[in-house]
């Protein structure tokens, strides 16, 4: 009743090609983003900001990169944590060695470095597909971590091999409190999400989807597979690299290459699948689910049972519940959380006449 599309007419081309066509949706997004910028930094506790929101935003960005490659272009890949590491260590070295470079400059450059590595590791996609490609991209995961581990230069010859990320400084102001770091993450996420939304609905995204749906047909229609696939790998790695740099600089702050292990790649893969392949909002929802559900379960069990029950038991139980939730999700909603949102939207249109 309050949420309906009827009566919204588009009279100009710019109205017709809006990213979010429905007026109500647009308002919801405006309010959420505005609250994210203006209210959350002032009202959220430091725990919420630095323990939950910052890693969520950074990993959502990485999931976005993974989704571009897997959801939109159909290239299965398992190297996102490797590209995160590439971005994080590139950002560290740029900040360390190029003194005049502003933080956003280093962030973009580290994304570009990750993108270049992504192009190299995307080359096998021209010859192999599906699961075989996934195995081939595993190489990037291990190779990048190995290179960073092996050559001390990347870590500035630190004896322990763990580097300390520099403070984020933008226009002479250092962003070191959780609220400030959160704002940096939110800003980067907002900008990159808008760019991604524009890419996937334009010719770039249509090329990706054509390749995903049937690459032979796409080639027949004149889409260059070489260009499209490598472009997808580059852009996906760019997102992973920037996300990794944010993850390292705003969240972990000190890092060793092992932090970006294969398990993290798997988690990002799950985020994309649970969130919804080929959707932008799904990246945020999926990252939230995979990242936060174990935390909430842990808090829940400690709050309910406290010290009455052996923590070893509750810790194990949390993992069991989390696993069962993923299985149920895949059985009943294989299209991911983004699809649930879509169903809710449809139902909202009919409300209150039909539920």
């Amino acid at each position, binding site marked *: 009743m309050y949420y309906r599309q009827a009566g919204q007419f588009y009279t100009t081309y710019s109205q017709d090609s809006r990213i979010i066509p429905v007026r109500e949706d647009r308002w919801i997004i405006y309010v959420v983003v505005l609250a994210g910028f203006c209210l959350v930094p002032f009202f959220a*506790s*430091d*725990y*919420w900001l*630095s*323990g*939950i929101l910052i*890693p969520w935003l950074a990993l959502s960005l990485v999931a976005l990169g993974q989704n571009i490659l897997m959801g939109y272009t159909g290239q299965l890949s398992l190297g996102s944590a490797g590209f995160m590491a590439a971005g994080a260590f590139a950002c560290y070295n740029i900040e360390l060695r190029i003194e005049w470079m502003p933080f956003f400059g280093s962030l973009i450059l580290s994304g570009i470095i990750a993108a270049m590595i992504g192009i190299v590791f995307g080359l096998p996609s021209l010859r192999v597909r599906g699961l075989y490609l996934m195995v081939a991209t595993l190489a990037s995961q291990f190779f990048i971590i190995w290179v960073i*581990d092996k050559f001390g230069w990347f870590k*500035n010859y630190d*004896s*322990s*091999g*763990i580097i*300390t990320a520099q403070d984020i400084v933008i226009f002479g102001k250092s962003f070191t409190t959780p609220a400030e770091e959160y704002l940096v993450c939110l800003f980067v996420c907002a900008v990159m999400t808008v760019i991604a939304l524009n890419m996937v609905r334009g010719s770039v995204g249509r090329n990706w989807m054509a390749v995903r749906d049937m690459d032979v047909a796409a080639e027949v229609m004149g889409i260059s597979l070489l260009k499209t696939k490598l472009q997808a790998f580059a852009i996906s790695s760019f997102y992973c690299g920037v996300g990794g740099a944010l993850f390292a600089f705003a*969240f*972990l*702050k*000190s*890092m*060793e290459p*092992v*932090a970006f*292990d294969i398990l993290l790649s798997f988690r990002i893969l799950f985020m994309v699948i649970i969130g919804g392949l080929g959707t932008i909002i799904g990246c945020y929802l999926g990252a939230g689910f995979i990242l936060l559900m*174990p*935390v*909430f*379960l*842990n*808090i*829940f069990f*400690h*709050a309910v049972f406290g*010290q009455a029950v*052996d*923590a*070893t*038991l509750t*810790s*194990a139980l*949390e*993992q069991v519940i989390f696993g069962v939730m993923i299985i149920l999700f895949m059985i*009943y*909603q294989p*299209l991911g959380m983004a*699809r*649930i949102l879509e*169903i*809710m939207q449809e*139902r909202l249109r009919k409300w209150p006449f039909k*539920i």
Partner: protein
Amino acid sequence: MMPTSLLRRVAPVSAAAFAAAAMLVSPMAMPTEAQAAEQYMAVPSSRVGPFSAMGTGYYGGIIDYMTYVNMNGGINGVMFTWQECETEYNAKRTVECFQRLLTGPNGQRTLVFDTLGTPGAYAVINRMAEEEVVLAQYGYGRTDAADGTVWPWVFNAASHYWSQIGMKLKFMAEQEGGVENMKGKKIVHLHIDSAYGREPLPAMRKITSDWGMELVEISIPPPGLEQQSQWLQIRRERPDWVTFWGAGSGMNATGMTNAARMGFPRERLVYVTFGGAEEDMVPAGDAAKGTFVVANAVPGRDFPLVKSILDKVYGAGKGNMENPDRVGQVYWNRGLGAAVMWAEAIRNAQRIHNKEGQPVTGAEFRDGYEAINMTPERLEELGITGMVAPFALSCEKHDGAGEFRMMQWNGEKFDIVSDWMGPPDPTFIRQLVEDSAGKFAGENNITPKNCS
């Protein structure tokens, strides 16, 4: 439509669960007035995953000691309260736990954070000074934090990895009949490929080259369950000694079974403190017999404090260990040692700042920790003589005795085969610590604290 109908049923439940969880989080962030004399401590335990044996034993020991202190009237009447959080031995979860546990349910800020693991310690180490929380690394973590001028908030009361590798080399030299016999000997450092595995290398490289030994570094990619090729390489190298630097029961047991398969004598295999506990030895079976392990807190149930805890805490059914047989084992005793230092630091802090019977703040606790002086008499009073080496901390010196005891697995339990032993040249190790800390301070624009 199937998904819709399910959604209709599931959505309210999950929304309610989410809201409940969110509500549970928020009160922790809101400070409330502390009532009785309580002292809140954070317990970031790691009870699941490949490192669960470590986490359950260690944090079990800590919680048992806090329960024991509370049953005996607390520290001058101040009772321990604590909150647990599952870190899964993972840097990301550790950061989340640090933020979550920072403020306790009674509004107090935690005094101490003990991550039991180098990855977790590194993830939070730079937050300590800002939040005024002591990072108590009990025998793990960042080695150059032993320099208190650069790392005022980080301690290592159970000695760090550089002293440990020095002590191992000294032990080997004794077995070989003196340092002069070490010349030309070959040693393999077989380690997990992470910062923790590489931590001893700066000291090890220097000492072995001084002694004219040949050092071969072989790394095992985490989680370290696959070591076949590394042990084949060891067979080719034919080393005189192997130092094994592993983590997690799977990796540690695999190391010994592979050594047995390759015919490498276990009497020449020396494990790190976090590599050899009962949980690592038993799965390896006969293959483990003869393996040397270094101890910073000696296992055993004969120490008066352990007996007393067994009697009082476990007698009353309030023990934290699911299996009480693990009380007195390597990890439990190490946790006990860590918790004794917490209590001692609180006691010192109350004395120094004239707050007997009152809770102390992070800064006061830090002063108390720096004032820890574990004389043999004090250890006797506490009932842990022989379990922990006597040591004293100071403003500059944030590490423990630098001494360890060597143990050997006899197939059923550990035999203690040496007295407390330190590195061959403690001043050299100290110099290494100060150089490394100085480099860190220079890179990060830290002005070292003036201790005089």
